[in-house]
C-alpha cells in the first residue's frame, strides 16, 4: 500500500493541491459574488448555484486555457527551438523530430515500448504527437469554455447597465474577452521564459528541473 503513494507522489501531491485550491477558489469566489450581489441589492445565491454559474466557470476556464496553451506551446516549441545551457532544452543539434533510433521507433523499438509505438503506420504517427494533441485539445476546449461562460457573465453586466446582450461571435471580439485571455497568456509565457533562462545559471539540488549543482552553465538538457 505504501508503494503506490511513494511511486506517484508527484501526481498525488499536485492532484490534491489542485482540488484543495479549486475548492478554496469556489468558497472565496462565492463570498465575493454574494458581496457584489448585496452591494447591488440583488439576490444572493447558494454555493451550489454559484458552482453551476458562469460567474464561477469563467474564472476557472480562463486560467485553465492559458495553462494548457503554455504546455502546448512548450511541447511544440521544444521540438524545434533550443536554449544553450537550459534544462528545458534538448542538446543543441537535436532540433526537429529526431531519428527513429533516437525516438526508439521502427527497427529500434524495444519489448517494453508502448503498443502504438510498435504498431507502425498511422497509429504510431498519432501516438508520436499524442501529448501535443491532447494538450492542444484541452486548450481549445477550455478557451471555448471561457468564451461561452465569459459571454454569460459579460451579458449579465450589460443588463445591469441597460445595454444589449452580445452574441458569442460579438463577445469574442470584445476587450473583455481578450483582456481575460491576454492577462493569463503573458504570465504563462513569462513563467516559461524565466524557467528556460534561469535554469541556465541557477540550481536546485535534487530537482530534475535543475542541472546538477556542479554542472557547467553551458551543459544543455542535463538533469540533476
Amino acid at each position: 500500500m505504501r508503494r503506490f503513494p511513494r511511486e506517484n507522489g508527484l501526481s498525488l501531491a499536485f492532484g490534491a493541491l489542485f482540488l484543495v485550491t479549486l475548492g478554496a477558489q469556489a468558497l472565496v469566489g462565492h463570498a465575493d459574488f454574494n458581496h457584489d450581489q448585496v452591494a447591488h441589492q440583488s439576490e444572493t445565491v447558494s454555493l451550489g448555484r454559484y458552482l453551476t454559474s458562469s460567474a464561477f466557470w469563467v474564472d476557472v476556464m480562463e486560467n485553465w486555457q492559458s495553462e494548457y496553451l503554455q504546455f502546448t506551446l512548450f511541447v511544440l516549441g521544444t521540438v524545434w527551438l533550443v536554449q544553450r545551457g537550459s534544462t528545458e532544452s534538448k542538446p543543441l543539434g537535436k532540433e526537429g523530430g529526431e531519428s527513429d533510433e533516437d525516438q526508439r521507433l521502427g527497427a529500434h523499438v524495444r519489448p517494453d515500448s508502448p503498443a502504438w509505438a510498435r504498431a507502425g503506420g498511422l497509429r504510431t504517427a498519432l501516438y508520436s504527437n499524442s501529448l501535443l494533441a491532447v494538450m492542444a485539445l484541452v486548450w481549445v476546449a477550455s478557451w471555448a469554455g471561457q468564451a461561452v461562460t465569459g459571454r454569460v457573465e459579460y451579458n449579465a453586466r450589460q443588463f445591469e447597465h441597460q445595454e444589449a446582450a452580445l452574441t458569442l461571435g460579438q463577445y469574442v471580439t470584445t476587450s473583455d474577452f481578450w483582456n481575460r485571455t491576454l492577462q493569463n497568456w503573458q504570465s504563462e509565457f513569462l513563467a516559461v521564459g524565466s524557467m528556460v533562462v534561469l535554469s541556465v545559471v541557477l540550481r536546485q539540488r535534487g530537482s530534475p528541473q535543475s542541472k546538477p549543482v556542479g554542472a557547467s552553465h553551458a551543459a544543455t538538457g542535463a538533469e540533476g
Partner: protein
Amino acid sequence: MHAPRSLIACCAALLAGATTGCGGGEDRAQARGVVARFQAALEGDRPGIACRQLSAAARAQLEEQAGSSCARALPELGLTPGAVVRVEVFVTNAKVDAAGGDSAFLDREPTGWKLSAVGCRAVDGKPRDRPLDCALKA
C-alpha cells in the same frame, strides 16, 4: 513541466460543466410574468400593483424624480405596453423585449425578479454598445 495524466482527465471531465450558468426556463418564465403583471396593472389602471413589480431602487428613483408617490408618478411615464417577444436571462439579470420596441431590465432580488429599468429604447445614431435610453432606471 510534466502535467500528471490524472490532472488532464480531471480537467476534461470538469470542462463538461463549463457551459452552464445561463438563466433557466423557470427564470425566463418568472421574468416574463413580472413584465406581464406590470403591463396588465398599467392597462387596468392599477398602478399600485405595477409599482410592486419595480425594484426598491427603481421605485425610489421614480418617487424622487417625480416628487410624488410611485402610484401617482408611474402612469405619467407614458409607457406603451406591448406583447413580450423576447426574454433573455444571464445569471441574475434579465431583459424583456416587447413588440412595440420597448425593453425592460430586471434584477433578481431576494423577493424575486423585479424591474430595474422600464421603457428602454435604443437611440437612433447611438452605437449599439451604448446603454439604452430608459423612461425609468434605478
